[in-house]
């Protein structure tokens, strides 16, 4: 075992085996006696300053300030934590050493998607989102934090153009949360409880929705056509009742195909007084019709791909959008930043629209709840959409479509490998390996040797898709990457 690896093992031992702790703590105590502890993050640890402040408060020691905490609740000994890396240099070495055990999508070629994908992040997105003024701000007023309000208003406005809707929220956690809230909004608007959900939606998102909706709303699956993947509208029609609050499907779907029956689904839903909610990948909207143009009442989705790094699936941001109707706007739980004028002519000011609907104002009488969510990812998306503009979004969508077509051609040509659905895809498609006799897990392990992260294994996610994988093609993938993948698969599946 290398020295470096043994160091992190030590951390586990420390915490899990108290006998080790005492040794280390004894060491620490020895250090403590030798010199005072002044950490660079804690200026007032300087003994002279501390004394002066204590004197001004009128106490002898800091422990007197804790007089309200009863003795039986006070910790008797120090926490068992590893010895700190007090110097920045040691800290950097330590954390980098652990991170170096990862292999990133910059080192390997990634065909992974399924709600988080390796899209290009323009340098200016990072430049802006890493600015101290944005990164470290929180909840200032629209005066000293005017910039925050304006940039998030601009985020809403840019997304509104992409989605062709007049209202967009300040981002929530992720698409799962956005879809969950959209469903709850529909429940409040229609005063109904049942929501019909296409059974091709992402299992991860569906799991989030199920937990969030229970026990207030019921989610009922709607079948898909096994050849095309498209929503089974006959099944939908049979399940739509006067108790249906909404219909929800995703477009492009989790399984990659483009749903073409949007307007028909909208008409069926509306005829029963239900709303249509569509989850959408915003990166497709330079070339694909936004849900508002085929009858959706609410759109939702994720902004990770718009100028935000993947972060192991941790840099998501959910959007919700709708028409500018009072009955919709008043059901949003999120912040909605609006534009206004000020007491000085020509000045723009910004602030909260309909604040009294929120839980900040009304506690449990507000709409769901609001708190800190994913604002910085909204700023990343605002910069991204400003850089790409209409032509950039068009070019990007087209680029992805073309590469995806090419990938399908190359991969479908491999013996015993087939494309699972025959509907047109956008950036993802399902490859069926069942006839190869090899599991997706095994195939993906082999691809690692070629520096490739193969498509996401769908085995276990959908019973009928055992042996299938979801492949994702972004602008990061080159022709050579696709050719390499095809060659590696061909070689292995020969």
């Amino acid at each position, binding site marked *: 075992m290398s020295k470096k690896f043994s160091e992190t093992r030590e951390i586990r031992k420390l915490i899990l085996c108290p006998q080790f702790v005492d040794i280390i703590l004894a060491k620490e105590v020895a250090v403590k006696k030798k010199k005072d502890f002044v950490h660079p993050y804690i200026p007032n640890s300087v003994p002279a300053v501390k004394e002066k402040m204590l004197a001004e408060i009128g106490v002898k020691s800091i422990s007197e300030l804790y007089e309200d905490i009863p003795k039986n609740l006070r910790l008797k000994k120090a926490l068992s934590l590893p010895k700190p890396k007090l110097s920045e240099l040691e800290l950097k070495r330590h954390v980098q050493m652990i991170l170096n055990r990862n292999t990133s999508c910059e080192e390997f070629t990634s065909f992974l998607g399924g709600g*988080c994908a390796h899209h290009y992040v323009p340098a200016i997105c990072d430049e802006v989102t890493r600015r101290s003024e944005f990164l470290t701000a929180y909840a200032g007023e629209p005066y000293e934090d005017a910039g925050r309000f304006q940039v998030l208003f601009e985020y809403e406005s840019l997304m509104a153009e992409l989605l062709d809707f007049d209202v967009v929220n300040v981002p929530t956690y992720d698409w799962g949360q956005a879809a969950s809230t959209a469903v709850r909004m529909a429940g409040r608007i229609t005063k109904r409880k049942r929501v019909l959900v296409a059974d091709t939606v992402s299992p991860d998102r569906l*799991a989030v929705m199920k937990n969030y909706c229970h026990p207030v709303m019921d989610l009922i699956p709607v079948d898909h056509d096994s050849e095309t993947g498209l929503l089974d509208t006959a099944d939908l029609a049979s399940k739509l009742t006067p108790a249906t609050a909404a219909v929800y499907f995703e477009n492009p779907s989790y399984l990659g195909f483009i749903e073409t029956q949007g307007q028909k689904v909208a008409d069926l839903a509306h005829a029963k007084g239900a709303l249509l909610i569509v989850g959408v990948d915003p990166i497709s909207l330079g070339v694909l019709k936004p849900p508002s143009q085929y009858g959706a009442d609410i759109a939702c989705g994720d902004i990770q791909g718009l100028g935000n790094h993947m972060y192991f699936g941790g840099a998501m941001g959910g959007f919700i959008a709708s028409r500018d109707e009072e009955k919709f706007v008043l059901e949003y739980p999120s912040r909605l930043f609006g534009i206004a004028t000020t007491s000085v002519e020509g000045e723009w000011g910004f602030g909260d629209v309909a604040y009294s609907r929120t839980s900040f104002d*009304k506690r449990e009488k507000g709409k769901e709840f609001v708190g800190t969510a994913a604002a910085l990812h909204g700023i990343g998306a605002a910069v991204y959409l400003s850089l790409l503009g209409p032509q950039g979004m068009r070019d990007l969508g087209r680029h992805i479509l073309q590469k995806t077509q090419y990938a399908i051609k190359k991969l479908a040509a491999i013996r015993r490998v087939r494309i699972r659905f025959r509907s047109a895809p956008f950036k993802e498609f399902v490859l069926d390996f069942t006839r190869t006799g090899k599991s997706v897990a095994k195939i993906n392990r082999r691809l690692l040797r070629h520096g490739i992260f193969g498509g996401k294994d769908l085995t276990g996610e959908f019973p009928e898709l055992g042996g299938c994988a979801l492949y994702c093609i972004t602008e990061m993938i080159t022709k050579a990457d696709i050719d390499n993948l095809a060659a590696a698969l061909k070689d292995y599946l020969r």
Partner: protein
Amino acid sequence: MNIQKGSKLRNFHQAKWDEKVIFELSTPGERGILLPDLEPEVKAFAGDGLSSVPENMLRNDPPALPEIAQMRVLKHFLRLSQQNLGADLNIDIGQGTCTMKYNPKINEVLAASPKASALHPAQDESTVQGALEIMSSLDLFLRQISGLDRFTLQTSSGSHAIMVMASIVRKYHETRGEGSRRNEIITTIFSHPSDAAAAAVKGYKVVTVYHDETGLPDIEALKKAVSARTAALFITNPEDTGMFNPRIAEFTGIVHEAGGLCGYDQANANGILGITRAREAGFDMCFFNLHKTFGTPHGCGGPAAAALGVTRKLIDYLPVPLVEFDGKKYYLNWDLPHTIGKVRLFYGTFAAIVKAYAWIMSLGARGLEEVANIAVLNNNYLLKNIAAIKGATAPFKAGEHRIEQVRYSWEELYKQTGVTTHDIAYRMADFGFHLWSSHHPFIVPQPFTIEPTESYSKEELDEYLDGLRHVAEEAWNEPETVKTAPHRSVVHRIDESTFDDPEKWAITWRAYQKKHGKTSR
């Protein structure tokens, strides 16, 4: 502006670029960034790409995004950033309850590594061992800090963690056949609004316990509130008043006695790190906000991250997956018998997880205790000084010490001068400060909430105090200056009348154009 001699106050003026809205910068044909050309073979096969899309799904009109060259995009957003104070520039102690502390830059450098930022959540586990190790270690650290037995990092914010606690409460009682009978969650009025709101999202009736004359939650009221319908208690301690409830173990005892669970909202943990823990106080669950207590930045309102811990009996109810270590390697465990399922996509706010891990590793056990000690020292130093400002008071338990923050009141000042806490906040902006009031409802009248944390030097606390003294002085002597503030910030008093009027509110630029004509400039 007359700044008194000897005052630490700055002759400040905030950046004011008079910046347009981004759509006003558009020049048709300008480009911000280009994509690589397609390889000829790809083009030859796929043609224009668009023909593969069913015709009824092709977008005909391109989205009306602005067209702007790269440097101008950069300049626009940099100008907006300069019109934002940010904690790195501010003495950000006026945003009480939010624990605005230093966010170390080294942690930003570490998290920006592609070894963190360019990981896909579905990568083979063998290629993300470092990521899983950091998550697992953070879980272990937090077990120590709380005394509880297992943490999930999937919770995306404090409010979200409350919703997840309510989900676990529901599943727990449902599993025991008491799901429908136990339909109430008890909280206190000084706990965060989400302790009530996120419980209601899970279908619970919320019972709110008020405080007694000491400002602490009324134990008699709690005794009346509990019953066979009680599913749980969600409570903060210290509450936003900065007062520690010494009878907290009795509170959890009363609820347990009635068959309910106890969830601890530890948003205010900064003053008690290494001092007192959730376990000893009798809690079944607790959560920390990594973006508050553990030094990760607030990002203008997220990405946030919370870590939710539970005692042994509730581990099986946690969201999946959990990170496990089998002695050789880390892996994701999706198999928990009573799991509530998933509460966010993938595994958690990974950038914040890396930063929080680094923050704890930089401080260690002694450092964490010093964080708490100095945060409490700073708070009581401010309390002593603010209570001496004419017109300001610290309601409840006057003259006694508080933990890490105090909810003060300008009520006396307001009664005499008509100057509100909002007026004072806006005037503070003229000196480069932010001052926040309180969550609603305003139990403390004309409230302001200050939480100095461990990050600020005495010199900086004195500067902020001089700001409060100066503005209070102005309120007594020249109230109009305060009532019309800000004067030296980015913008002047905003006409808020449109924000509640459906005919006039404008949440997007296109809505503004529709309702108010093209522009007002």
